[in-house]
Each structure stands twice: as structure tokens, then as C-alpha cells.
């Protein structure tokens, strides 16, 4: 015979009392462990939902962005950057700017990362009269090296970052020309023809469709040759660009952004159809954001309600369980008074008798803590409708709480057992044994 044997046989004999005790510890631990699990699970779920939503929103935005990007690209560039001294009033009549800027400006816009512009196209152009294919014609000779990448907009660039996937205007190789509709018609030139311009032989790469603007008399070629012909090395007089859709409603910001990098230039905006669409898109984005915010706020309020509820319920459940357990142990001790008297009569010491009750409560506490740990998580998961075995939920399990529970629950039980047991061993064994 040893103490454990005595304890286990007694537990087996008085199962109901033990199970009731176990149930109340487990309930207390369930409440105590379940409450923070529930809150953690709810927060985690909020994160998951928000991430999913914002990913969906972002995808939707990207999709719209791409749509608009294509539309805007089709519509062409919508911003011009000109030298600060350029006379804007004569610009439309002339069809080209007069003042030049260093070529290096466009590179600075690209590498110093303009926030508001994309698809930068440096141009050097001038209206000149030439003898061409037997005609005396006026053309706007336009040279460009092709689009200059804005380095931080990797999404639009090729892997090496040197070119655009879908430029608005393709780079024209040296030795080739792209002709405005009007000039091509007058000179009867078609794509693929050879022609000599200012003493140099070119192949016609492409004829643009009619625009009804001075573009129809434009002759596009590589900038190096134009700079040479006009004797303006390393100069340009125009930068065309596409304003980012995100900035569609803020010319002021574009100006500020450009002037941050290039203080002495002017910015002109054209094409308001593009702007209207971009604004619509921005409104959609804002609506998405508001919806997300209100969802987040709603979930925050729910979490707050849970928090308030559990902050009252948990201590209450623990208190009720503690009182109930004291009652159960009082009852257990009363049932066992004779037994205690006999144990003392046969010489079992007070400490040993006390430990019979304390060890029993310890067993109750340890099992109760483990049950409560499992049940607490199950209840938490169930409450927020998460799968108990999902990776998200398992990541929320803090095994530290198991250790704390394994101390707290037995402590609670032993406290509940302590007072009745101490009371019993201080009773006179003789008076116990004489009763009956």
C-alpha cells in the first residue's frame, strides 16, 4: 500500500465527485485559456481577411491600371516638358518649341525617379524647309533616341531595365524614318521605301495615321542625326511624358515633382479624357479603401466586445469554479472524516493525511489544466469559426500557456482542498471515532 494507491482507489470509488471537480477546473481553465485564444484568433482572422481583401483590391487596381495604361498609351503622351523660357503662346502655331534644354535633363528625370511621370520621350525638333523627292516641303524634323526608362518603375520595364515592354513610341533605329501622314502622301512614300533626305539614305519604317495636327508633317528619326543636322549636340527642346494615372487630378503635384528635379522647366498638360478616366479609377480605389476601413473598424469593435465580455466572464467562471471546488472538497472531507480518524489512529501523520487531499487536488488540477488547454483552444476556434487543425490556428497556440495552466490549475485546486483538509486533520480523531 502506498499513498498513490490510496488516492487512486478513492478517486475510483468516488468518481462523481472527482469528475465534478475535474469539470469545474477544466471549465475555469477553458475560460481562462479560451478567452485570449479567441481574441488572438479573431485578430489573426482579421489580418487574413484584410490581406486577402487588399490583395484582391490591389489585383483589381493593377488590372484597371493596366487597362488605363493601355488606353492612355493609345491616346499618347499627355504632358510636355519645355524649357523655362519657351514662349507658350507661339507654340501651337509654330508646331515645335524654340528653346532647347540639355539632353541630360531627361536622364535626370529617369534616374532621379520622377514620381508622377512615366514614358519619358526626349525630342529635338525643328520646322525646316527641305528639297525632298523633288518637292520643296516644310517638315518638322523630329529626332528621338526612344523612351528613357524611369528606373523605379520596374513593372513596365524589360528585365535589364533599359527599355519599356510596351513603349508609346518605339525606338527608331539610325537609318530609318517614321513619317507623318501628310508628308508621306505628298512625297508618295510608303513603309519599306528608300529615300534620300538631306544627303542621307533612309528606309521608311512606318507611316503614321492622320492626326489633323502638325504631327502630320513630322519626320521622325534618331536624335543623333537631328542634333548633327541642326548643329545642336546634346540638346533637346521637348520631353513628352505620360502622367501617372495616380496623379491624374494634380497638375500641381506633377509640376512640383518635375521642378524638384529640373527647376527651370515648364510643364504643360493636355488630353483631359485620360484625366477623367483616371479620376474615375481613383474614386474606385478610394471606395475600396473606405470599405476596407469600415470592415476593419467593424472587426475591431467586435474584438473589443469580446475583450470586454471575457474580461468579466473569465474571472467570474474561475471564481465560481473555485467556490464550487471548495464546496466539493468540503464534502469530500466530510465523507471521509471516519477515514481520517482511522488513518490517524493507525499512526498516519497529519502531513501524510494532508498530502492525501493535496495530491488528489493536484491530479485534478493537472488533468483539468490539460483538458482546459485543449477545450479552450477548441472553443476559441469554434467561436471565430476557424479550423482547429488549420495552420493559421495552430500557429496561434502558445504552449507557454499550457505551462502556466499546469501551475495555475493545480494551485487553484490545492487551495480549494487546503482549507477543508486542514480543518479535518485538526479535528479530534477520538471524537470522530466515537461518533456514530
Amino acid at each position, binding site marked *: 500500500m502506498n499513498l498513490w494507491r490510496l488516492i487512486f*482507489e478513492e478517486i475510483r470509488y468516488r468518481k462523481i465527485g472527482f469528475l465534478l471537480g475535474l469539470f469545474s477546473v477544466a471549465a475555469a481553465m477553458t475560460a481562462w485559456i479560451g478567452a485570449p485564444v479567441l481574441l488572438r484568433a479573431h485578430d489573426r482572422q482579421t489580418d487574413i481577411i484584410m490581406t486577402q481583401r487588399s490583395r484582391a483590391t490591389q489585383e483589381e487596381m493593377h488590372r484597371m491600371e493596366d487597362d488605363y495604361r493601355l488606353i492612355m498609351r493609345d491616346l499618347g503622351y499627355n504632358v510636355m516638358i519645355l524649357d523655362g523660357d519657351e514662349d507658350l503662346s507661339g507654340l501651337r502655331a509654330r508646331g515645335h518649341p524654340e528653346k532647347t534644354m540639355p539632353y541630360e535633363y531627361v536622364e535626370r528625370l529617369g534616374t532621379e525617379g520622377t514620381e508622377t511621370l512615366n514614358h519619358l520621350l526626349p525630342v529635338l525638333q525643328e520646322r525646316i524647309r527641305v528639297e525632298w523627292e523633288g518637292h520643296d516641303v516644310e517638315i518638322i524634323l523630329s529626332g528621338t533616341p526612344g523612351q528613357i526608362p524611369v528606373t523605379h518603375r520596374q513593372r513596365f520595364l524589360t528585365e535589364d531595365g533599359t527599355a519599356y515592354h510596351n513603349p508609346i513610341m518605339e525606338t527608331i533605329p539610325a537609318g530609318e524614318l517614321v513619317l507623318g501622314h501628310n508628308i508621306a502622301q505628298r512625297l508618295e512614300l510608303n513603309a519599306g521605301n528608300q529615300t534620300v533626305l538631306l544627303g542621307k539614305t533612309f528606309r521608311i519604317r512606318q507611316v503614321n495615321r492622320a492626326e489633323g495636327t502638325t504631327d502630320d508633317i513630322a519626320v521622325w528619326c534618331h536624335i543623333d542625326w537631328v542634333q548633327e543636322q541642326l548643329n545642336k549636340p546634346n540638346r533637346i527642346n521637348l520631353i513628352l511624358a505620360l502622367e501617372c494615372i495616380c496623379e491624374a487630378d494634380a497638375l500641381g503635384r506633377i509640376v512640383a515633382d518635375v521642378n524638384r528635379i529640373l527647376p527651370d522647366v515648364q510643364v504643360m498638360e493636355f488630353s483631359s479624357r485620360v484625366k477623367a478616366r483616371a479620376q474615375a479609377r481613383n474614386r474606385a480605389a478610394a471606395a475600396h479603401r473606405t470599405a476596407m476601413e469600415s470592415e476593419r473598424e467593424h472587426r475591431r469593435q467586435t474584438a473589443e466586445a469580446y475583450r470586454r465580455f471575457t474580461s468579466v466572464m473569465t474571472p467570474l467562471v474561475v471564481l465560481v469554479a473555485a467556490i464550487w471546488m471548495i464546496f466539493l472538497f468540503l464534502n469530500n472531507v466530510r465523507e471521509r472524516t471516519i477515514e481520517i480518524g*482511522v488513518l490517524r489512529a493507525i499512526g498516519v501523520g*497529519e502531513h501524510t493525511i494532508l498530502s492525501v487531499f493535496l495530491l488528489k487536488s493536484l491530479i485534478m488540477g493537472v488533468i483539468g489544466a490539460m483538458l482546459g488547454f485543449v477545450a479552450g483552444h477548441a472553443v476559441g476556434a469554434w467561436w471565430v469559426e476557424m479550423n482547429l487543425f488549420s495552420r493559421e490556428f495552430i500557429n496561434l497556440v502558445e504552449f507557454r500557456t499550457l505551462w502556466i495552466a499546469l501551475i495555475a490549475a493545480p494551485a487553484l485546486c490545492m487551495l480549494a482542498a487546503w482549507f477543508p483538509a486542514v480543518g479535518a486533520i485538526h479535528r*479530534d480523531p477520538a471524537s470522530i471515532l466515537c461518533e456514530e
Partner: protein
Amino acid sequence: MTQVLQIEHITKRYRRRGRETVTALRNVSLSLNRGDLRFVYGPSGSGKSTLLLCAGGLLRPDQGVITLSDRNPYALTSEARSQLRARHVGFVFQQFHLMPYLSVIDNVLAPTLASVSTDDQRPRAEELIERFGLVPRRNHPPSELSIGERQRVALARALLHQPMLLLADEPTGNLDQDNGKRVMDALREYAAAGGAVMIVTHDRELRDADALHLVDGALTA
């Protein structure tokens, strides 16, 4: 002859607040040596059980001195008194007081919980079970035993540690003649082997020539 128990002029009163004080023992003296088998006869309520509890170191008398194996148990700490009981005293209670959830064998082994001896008591427990004809009931709980069987389990439990002093309260009170004789033989044998046995009873049949009479808490010859 070695003295096992000496009781000198003890008086025991039960006081309970709000109730009359009961004087259960008045100036009682007696002594017991090894090999003694002493009957204390008295009617119900005369103080027999009280006398046994006082003698066994379980109930402190109001006056008088008890010497148990050369020590006054009531001068010891509670733990030391427990040890003294565990080592030297065996009780057989009037109501047996077996542990309801332990089998016969475990009830007999219950005194090992006091762990005064590190020897394996199991062979001796088995021997006692056999001796009292309890082998077929070895693994049964008390609720499945007859009164006589319970009485014998209680006696076996008291004898496990081979106490110097065996105190038996109405050990044959609930038994038929055969079983009563069996128990009495065992007690006589125990005394003959050198134990001191005190039996309290209201059964006139059990009295012998040296029986002490307890009347209203006082001993008469």
C-alpha cells in the same frame, strides 16, 4: 514482566459548548504487562470506548497520566504521538472503520501508510488473511463482506505491525458464536505470544475472573 501500559487516575470529560458536560471517565487507574489479556466490562455508555481511546494515545484525558511503552503520549508532539501509535498500538474499533474503497488485502495493509517500517509487510498480511479465513474475500471491498468478515479484517489490520498493545472495542459484539470464538482465540494467542491485549465489552459472557468493571466512568473491582 514488562509494563506496556499504565493508566494513573485519569478523568475524561466531554465538553461541548451549549451542552451538558459528560464525565466519561472518573479517576481510572490500571496497568497492563506483556502477555496480559484484560477485559473491561461495563454497560453501554459507561465509558469503555473513551477508555480505549485515551489508552491508545488518541484522546487526551483531562487529568491523570498515561504511560505507553515508557512514554507519556500526550507529552509528545502530534507527529511523534502518531509514530508511537503506529509502532506500538493496534486498534480494533467497535464499528471496524474499514476503508470502504480498499480491498481486504489493502485494508489489512493500510497501516503501512504510516511507514514506520520499511520491511515488506505483504507476506505478513497474506498470512493474517489466511489465518482469519479471508482468502476467498481477499480482493473484495468491505461492502461485499459479512459483518463477521469485516470484524476479522479489522483485527488483521490491527495485528499487522505486531503492536505491543492491542486495544479491542467489542471485538465479538457483532459475531455469532463460532466467529466470536475464532476472534477470541486469536486475541488469546496474541497475548500468549507476548502482546498486551485490552478488550472492552458489555458482554457478560466474555468476563473472566480478573475482569474490571466500569460503571458510570469509574472502575470497580
